[in-house]
């Protein structure tokens, strides 16, 4: 009896916690969606009327399209670079015979622990010397610095679980070291690589601090465009941009869960 009572109090508390997380964290995010449909020229809640003009503006106005394309380009290149470096580093950290492997592992993860503003300051000073300020290359390098630790974190976890006798089996069956990686190792750590890729992409797409230091004067990223819009005018286009972001995020989650379901079906994942 007593136990049941405790349980119900616990359940009530859990319910309150869940509800407040939802109210304070999720709802403000979702509120951007109805606000983006307002007819007014300013952000209003509740929205007045119904209009798609702000979404239309986001997809047609050069001042929005160019930063969006630039951000996607930056995030895509960063993701590829992060995954190549992250996979190679993970293989070395898990499989390699290296002195001080643990220390090296921590060193590779250290950019995650250093405050972003410190990294930004350091990178700014160095990049100025190399004339990398205001270039796509410079920003890719900067985002790679913060993206690689995420990639290593996820991919090494996958590699530690990986049964290396599968690679021996492949070699025994006539596959070279390279073919073994392509046909056996890569397909099996691919879920980890995809997850790492999503992390790196979002990290880069979302990042503002490093961009503020390195952007120069010619280009804008989407978060920076939104930030300056909010600073000066607060038009509903910001809400429209947010809506697009939210839909993209939900789409990604659905896509990932489909991949996961397929893997569960053939027993790749518990």
């Amino acid at each position, binding site marked *: 009896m007593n136990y049941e009572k405790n349980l119900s109090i616990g359940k009530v508390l859990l319910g309150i916690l869940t509800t407040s997380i939802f109210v304070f964290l999720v709802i403000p995010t979702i509120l951007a969606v109805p606000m983006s449909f307002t007819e007014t020229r300013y952000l209003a809640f509740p929205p007045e009327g119904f209009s798609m003009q702000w979404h239309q503006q986001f997809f047609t106005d050069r001042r929005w399209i160019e930063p969006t394309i630039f951000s996607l380009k930056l995030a895509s290149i960063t993701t590829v670079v992060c995954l190549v470096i992250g996979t190679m580093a993970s293989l070395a950290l898990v499989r390699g015979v290296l002195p001080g492997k643990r220390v090296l592992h921590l060193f590779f993860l250290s950019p995650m622990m250093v405050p972003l503003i410190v990294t930004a300051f350091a990178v700014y000073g160095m990049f100025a010397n190399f004339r990398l300020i205001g270039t796509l290359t410079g920003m890719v390098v900067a985002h790679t610095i913060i993206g690689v630790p995420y990639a290593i974190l996820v991919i090494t976890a996958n590699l530690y679980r990986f049964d290396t006798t*599968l690679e021996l*089996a492949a*070699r*025994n*069956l*006539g596959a070279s070291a390279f073919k073994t990686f392509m046909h056996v190792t890569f397909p099996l750590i691919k879920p980890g690589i995809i997850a790492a890729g999503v992390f790196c992409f979002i990290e880069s797409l979302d990042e503002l601090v490093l961009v503020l230091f390195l952007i120069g004067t010619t280009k804008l990223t989407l978060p920076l465009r939104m930030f300056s819009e909010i600073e000066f005018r607060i038009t509903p286009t910001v809400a429209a941009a947010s809506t697009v972001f939210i839909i993209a995020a939900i789409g990604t989650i659905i896509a990932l869960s489909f991949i996961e379901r397929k893997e569960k079906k*053939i*027993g790749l994942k518990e």
Partner: protein
Amino acid sequence: MQAPTKDPILRLINLEKTFGDVVAVADVSLDIGDGEFLTLLGPSGSGKTTILNMIAGFEFPTSGDVILQGQSINALLPEKRNIGLVFQNYALFPHMTVFENIAFPLKMRKFPKEDIQRKVKQALELVQLSGYETRFPKQLSGGQQQRIAVARALVFDAPLLLFDEPLGALDKKLREHMQLELKEIHTQLKRTMIYVTHDQEEALVMSDRIVVMNHGRFEQVGNPDELYEKPANSFVASFIGESNFIEGTVAAHDQRLTIEIEGGETISFKWSERIQKGEAVKFCLRPEKIFFVADDDPGGSVHGVIRDVIYVGETKRYAIDVGRSKTIFMRQMSTRIGQGRQKGEKVHIGWHEESLRRLSE
């Protein structure tokens, strides 16, 4: 060491492997005949898997040579050796179907598509799993997975097949069934097979020849009945089957050989070969070769008291104290009516002289 019946397909010549200070395999040589089923038998850590790994190319010998079909393969990468290998944990590729798994070695060898189809089909028929092509490994039972692993190792017609404790993960019933099935495949294909196991029963059932290993060395090489009937030393005698050991120094040798055993007691029995007084000796005697004799048997028997009778199904096991500190175990078929003895009974036991084997150490 006994020579194989046919030309050796594989020769191990003074093969040695050390890991730091640890000697995993110590200077062993062996010829393996074409079509032979040879088992490397030993406890874990005896170096049997290390030998297999050196043949497969996963380990590089510290010294010595591995000769396959007349050519040294020491410098060859694993993928160039063309040797089939079945792993203990199956090592099937979980992201590939049964068909893709078995086709993998053929694809790597760039076989044409029709040949791959045909050979995979044949291999599946051989392991009796036709119709499972589209399944994934995780959708199969342990026994089925192991059969797919066997099919994958067979499908590319390697002249030599290696098995690394392939049945270790299966339950007893299934293991015994798979032993016979593998034996059947060996008879059908006449392919040379080297089998690694720590299970002496499995080794006896399956092998043409057995190599008993301990601490990286070959203790004895021989066919199953040789090893059982004529163990070369006490390790082999105790590792294969059950043994009584009678160990001590010769106190007298006239009609009977009298040995002073541990604790100052003596035990005496018939032994023809002359042994000097004072010499240290060790004998091995299988429990099933001992029998009860009548009290007045003149042939010379050993007196004892039954300490324990253990019923183990088809046989009964007697523990007989023949002295304060010496117990001899004997085994009798349970079906022998009227021969059953009780606990505490005074008995005389005997054996034929040729059942007794003197060991070198």
